[in-house]
């Protein structure tokens, strides 16, 4: 199949192929239309072609509007009245019993059809309920059953559809479109529903002012088209779609998630660049396009790496901005702009992170359940993204290995001796101690290195080339540590034995985070406490340091992907084939990205244009990693739970890293004195003072008092914060309690599901047992709605699906119950008329069964005085006679319809009861050697006789 090429298109046989030009609608309908009376064979033939075709035929029903839908009904109705056909008379009874159901029984029936899965309320669910039902009713190829319930189901479908349309009309346009999209139906059905809704809406509108309605309709249509246009345009701007598809196709979702993360960070940086450039840099450039670079500083090339010297006084760094209030067209206060831009950007970043983290947690972590491992592996782990032939093969292999592993894991889990577990514990302890000391050690070494550097550095504008190059030492060492130490960590991991891969990854991630945190903490400490005191324009110095870190980190990322991936590829393929081609280490690479992003966040105060560098870096990195991935790596062997890892990474990005960066910037803004000779905040005690100055200014100009009032009574008052924290704590407490309540309820509901499952199986068992112990009743019930010809088929399909069997049993039971009532009322026996509609259809069926049984038994007792014929054949003859008599009397029932028909009924019943009685004694004591063909056939005949009598009785009315 895969070898099928497009060349086949040019094969003329294709164009003649019927499948291509086939008109489904007419083709499936024609046999039915051409011979409307041959429903017996026609319908059978149609349904027996397979479940799909019958399903298909029904699915198509609502599409073509109501006329088309009713073809089935129109066609099937006359058949019942045509009794001239010489074929077996039995199937006429069949149809009669189908269509003569009194209207009030319809409700009961539809109730009982309702499968337990049908829940009302949620629209989608309800809709799904129908389609489920539709699927479950028909696919089993039981045509009689279809004939039996088709009417009820069609009615119900119409009702459901009407309800759905009404619900949809009530929604707003946007919600409606989403609701339609979310319907689990085929496109044609959706289109049909949509047109219905639109027609309904326009009909409703036309009653109002037509002109206005038209206008608003057009407006909303054009708005919607405009919205779709914007979405289209946004998709055009979407970066790297093709590449993403390629990566996902070859390496699967988990590797793809790295690239998605990279892209997401890139978007973050583009946003921050736009904000900073727009609100800080452009005003500065408008006011003073050229920085005042002292003439003796020239561009030497090394600046690109170090960011020092020539760049020192440009808008790249804090020092390049002025503190003046610019009066061009409008007054623009640089101090306020700088402060608020950074503050607002940080707040926005925080909100975006919190939201994405929270939603990701909600979907990926809270709901996730590690218990269902193999179910997940089997049913959810297949990656539909993968389109590469080789990758598919590899993935299949991996899945097989994983399944085998998980099975053997389960078998071996108990067998772990004390000494072994002690050994494992020792290895963990050693690895943790070692890795923590490595992290602390690298932090300490960087601390001493920074001190050494500060001693050598001088606070002068122009450094010699050597001095400038020396500044690269710290970033170099830091990046080297970031590159090498994680490799050690991976090495430790090889010696540890973790029970699950997830724990292993978590351990690795935690160690790497510790390392990066310790390095960054030492650097920040150094900047805050040493650099801030020593240099005259210290913010720019910090900015430069960050610039260097970002640049050198980029170089090391490139080196890392060269060494980490290319070299291990070479080693794996050429030197030590045992190692094999390396996999792409998502965890390590994502942590590198997080580290890089943290540098950019810290630097945003000191070097507002750092995001520009970051954008460039990420952009190049994307292509670099992509090339490295496709050249050096193989798809991951284990399909881990990528979504959870993604959540962890976003959480990590937020918690230690973003929060750390924000607190660092906040500390700078609140506590440190800005440098006196450069930057927008020169001359102030702290950066935050700028707000106080502004407030004083506002008070003097007395233009907007409310701002001042808010500042003094809200921002600066402790009471406000006290109250806010109190309220938040109370809310948190309430939510906590609510969550506990929900947990309790979830547990209860889960238990309830389990209990209901047990109930269901118990009731099913009871039902089956009862049916087994009373086969006569069973056959009697099944007979009224079956051709004798179809019976063998039915037995084979009956075992196929239990649910279908239940529904059938229910229907049969209800039908039987109805008959029983009628019969009893004509026979003068008191009827228990409490057919209460109990919620569970099953219970109803059970009760009905028991009641019917009871009545049956009563009848047996009351019929005791009849002379009991010794053989079945006499019963048969009696039944036959009764039928004939019924026929005869049915012809001249005009004279006295009630009495004659009821007497016929009585006789037939008696005949039947007699037949039953005869057949039971034979059947019960010796079932093995006597399969009771005679008894059952007598029963069938009696049933037929009764049916006929009933038909005629009905006709008589």
């Amino acid at each position, binding site marked *: 199949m895969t070898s099928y090429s497009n060349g086949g298109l040019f094969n003329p046989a294709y164009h003649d192929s019927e499948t291509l030009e086939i008109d489904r609608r007419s083709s499936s309908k024609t046999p039915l239309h051409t011979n409307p009376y041959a429903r017996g064979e026609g319908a059978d033939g149609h349904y027996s072609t397979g479940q*799909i075709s019958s399903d298909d035929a029904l699915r198509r029903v609502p599409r073509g509007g109501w006329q088309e839908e009713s073809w089935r009904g129109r066609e099937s109705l006359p058949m019942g009245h045509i009794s001239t056909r010489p074929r077996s008379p039995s199937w006429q009874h069949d149809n009669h019993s189908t269509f003569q159901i009194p209207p009030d029984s319809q409700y009961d029936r539809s109730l009982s059809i309702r499968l337990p899965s049908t829940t009302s309320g949620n629209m989608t669910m309800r809709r799904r309920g129908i389609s489920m039902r539709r699927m479950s009713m028909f696919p089993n190829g039981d045509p009689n059953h279809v004939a039996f319930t088709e009417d009820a189901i069609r009615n119900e479908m119409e009702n459901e559809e009407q309800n759905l349309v009404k619900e949809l009309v009530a929604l707003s346009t946007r919600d409606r479109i989403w609701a339609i999209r979310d319907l689990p139906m085929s496109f044609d059905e959706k289109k049909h529903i949509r047109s219905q809704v639109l027609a309904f809406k326009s009909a409703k509108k036309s009653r109002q002012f037509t002109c206005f309605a038209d206008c608003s309709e057009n407006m909303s249509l054009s708005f919607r088209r405009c919205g779709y246009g914007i979405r289209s345009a946004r998709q055009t701007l979407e970066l790297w779609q093709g590449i993403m598809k390629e990566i996902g196709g070859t390496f699967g979702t988990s590797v793809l998630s790295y690239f998605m993360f990279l892209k997401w960070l890139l978007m973050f940086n583009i946003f921050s660049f736009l904000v900073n450039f727009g609100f800080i840099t452009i005003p500065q450039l408008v006011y003073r396009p050229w920085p005042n670079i002292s003439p003796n500083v020239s561009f030497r090339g090394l600046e690109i790496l170090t960011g020092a010297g020539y760049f020192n006084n440009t808008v790249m760094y804090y020092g390049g901005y002025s503190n003046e209030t610019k009066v061009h067209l409008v007054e623009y206060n640089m101090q306020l702009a700088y402060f608020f831009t950074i503050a607002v950007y940080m707040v926005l970043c925080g909100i975006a992170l919190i939201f994405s983290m929270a939603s990701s947690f909600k979907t990926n972590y809270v709901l996730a359940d590690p218990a269902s491992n193999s179910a997940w592996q089997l049913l959810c782990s297949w990656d539909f993204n993968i389109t590469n032939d080789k990758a598919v093969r590899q993935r299949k292999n991996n899945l097989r290995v994983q399944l085998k592993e998980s099975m053997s894991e389960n078998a071996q889990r108990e067998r772990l001796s004390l000494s072994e577990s002690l050994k494992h514990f020792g290895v963990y302890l050693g690895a943790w101690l070692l890795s923590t000391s490595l992290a602390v050690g690298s932090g300490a070494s960087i601390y001493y290195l920074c001190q050494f550097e500060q001693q050598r550095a001088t606070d002068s504008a122009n450094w010699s080339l050597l001095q400038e190059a020396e500044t690269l030492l710290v970033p170099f060492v830091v990046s080297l540590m970031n590159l090498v130490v994680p490799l050690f960590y991976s090495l430790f991991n090889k010696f540890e034995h973790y029970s699950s891969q997830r724990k292993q990854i978590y351990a690795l991630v935690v160690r790497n985070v510790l390392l990066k945190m310790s390095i960054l903490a030492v650097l920040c400490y150094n900047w805050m406490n040493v650099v801030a005191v020593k240099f005259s324009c210290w913010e720019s110095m910090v900015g430069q340091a960050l610039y260097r870190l970002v640049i050198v980190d980029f170089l090391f990322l490139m080196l890392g992907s060269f060494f980490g991936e290319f070299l291990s590829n070479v080693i794996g393929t050429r030197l030590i084939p045992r190692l094999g081609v390396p996999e792409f280490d998502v965890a390590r690479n994502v942590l590198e990205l997080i580290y890089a992003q943290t540098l950019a966040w810290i630097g945003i105060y000191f070097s507002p244009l750092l995001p520009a560098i970051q954008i460039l870096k990420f952009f190049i990195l994307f292509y670099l990693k992509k090339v490295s991935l496709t050249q050096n790596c193989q798809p991951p062997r284990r399909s881990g739970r990528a979504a959870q890892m993604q959540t962890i990474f976003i959480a990590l990005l937020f918690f230690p890293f973003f929060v750390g960066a924000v607190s660092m910037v906040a500390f700078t803004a609140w506590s440190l004195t800005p440098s006196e000779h450069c930057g927008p905040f020169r001359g102030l005690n702290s950066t935050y003072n700028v707000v106080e100055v502004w407030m004083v200014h506002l008070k003097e100009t007395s233009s907007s008092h409310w701002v001042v009032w808010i500042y003094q009574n809200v921002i600066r008052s402790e009471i406000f914060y006290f109250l806010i924290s109190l309220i938040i704590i109370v809310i948190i407490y309430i939510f906590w309690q609510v969550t506990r309540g929900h947990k309790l309820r979830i547990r209860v509901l889960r238990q309830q599901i389990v209990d209901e499952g047990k109930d269901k199986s118990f009731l099913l068992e009871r039902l089956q047992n009862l049916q087994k112990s009373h086969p006569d009743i069973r056959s009697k019930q099944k007979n009224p709605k079956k051709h004798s010809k179809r019976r063998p088929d039915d037995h084979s399909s009956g075992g196929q699906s239990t649910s279908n069997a239940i529904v059938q049993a229910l229907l049969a039971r209800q039908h039987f119950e109805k008959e029983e009532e009628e019969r009893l009322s004509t026979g003068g026996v008191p009827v228990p008329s409490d057919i209460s509609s109990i919620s569970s259809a099953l219970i109803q069926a059970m009760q009905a069964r028991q009641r019917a049984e009871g009545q049956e038994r009563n009848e047996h007792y009351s019929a005791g005085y009849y002379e009991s014929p010794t053989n079945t054949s006499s019963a048969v003859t009696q039944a036959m006679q009764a039928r004939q008599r019924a026929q005869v009397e049915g012809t001249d029932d005009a004279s006295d319809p009630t009495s004659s028909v009821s007497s016929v009924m009585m006789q037939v019943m008696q005949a039947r009861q007699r037949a039953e009685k005869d057949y039971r004694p034979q059947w019960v004591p010796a079932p093995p050697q006597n399969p009771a063909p005679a008894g059952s056939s007598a029963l069938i005949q009696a049933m037929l006789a009764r049916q006929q009598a009933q038909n005629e009785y009905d006709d008589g009315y």
Partner: protein
Amino acid sequence: MGNKQTIFTAQQLDSYQDCTYFTRKEILRLFDRYRDLAPQLVPLDYTCQPDVKLPYELIGSMPELKDNPFRQRIAEVFSDDGEGNMTLDDFLDMFSVMSEMAPRDLKAYYAFKIYDFNNDDFLCKSDLEKTLNKLTRNELTEDEVRMVCEKVIDESDLDNDGRLSLEDFQTMIVRAPDFLSTFHIRI
């Protein structure tokens, strides 16, 4: 891509956009993909709603599907005739469900149908065995297959009826967050 397109009327495009998760551009791109499968059969003008159907052999040879072990089931589930022969509408419907925007419930519903090989609305053991064999190239022994299937049912069957209903399946999907990203075909 020119702003004027004559393949669909504006109303057709509206209804496509309202009923699928695609934008105009994507719909046109999907149409191109559909037409590329059989340029002689698919007309360039869909305004009169021609009744064109591509056979499963062509649909299954798309690069997005040709290596997918479930390609036949996917085509069957989404085709109107249940045999994998697809009209443009079916084609759009398929990729709409497989797109990124489709909600979890919808995806779960169709995934369930895809795994339900015998269309009986339940994932029973035979369905799971078929799925497993498709996923592992028939390389597990019978015992292993049986064990895995039993374990799957054991883990996810909430009502203890020995097979997975749609509800069971949805509960399982909710607990498997990766499903949203893996049950996804990029176009």
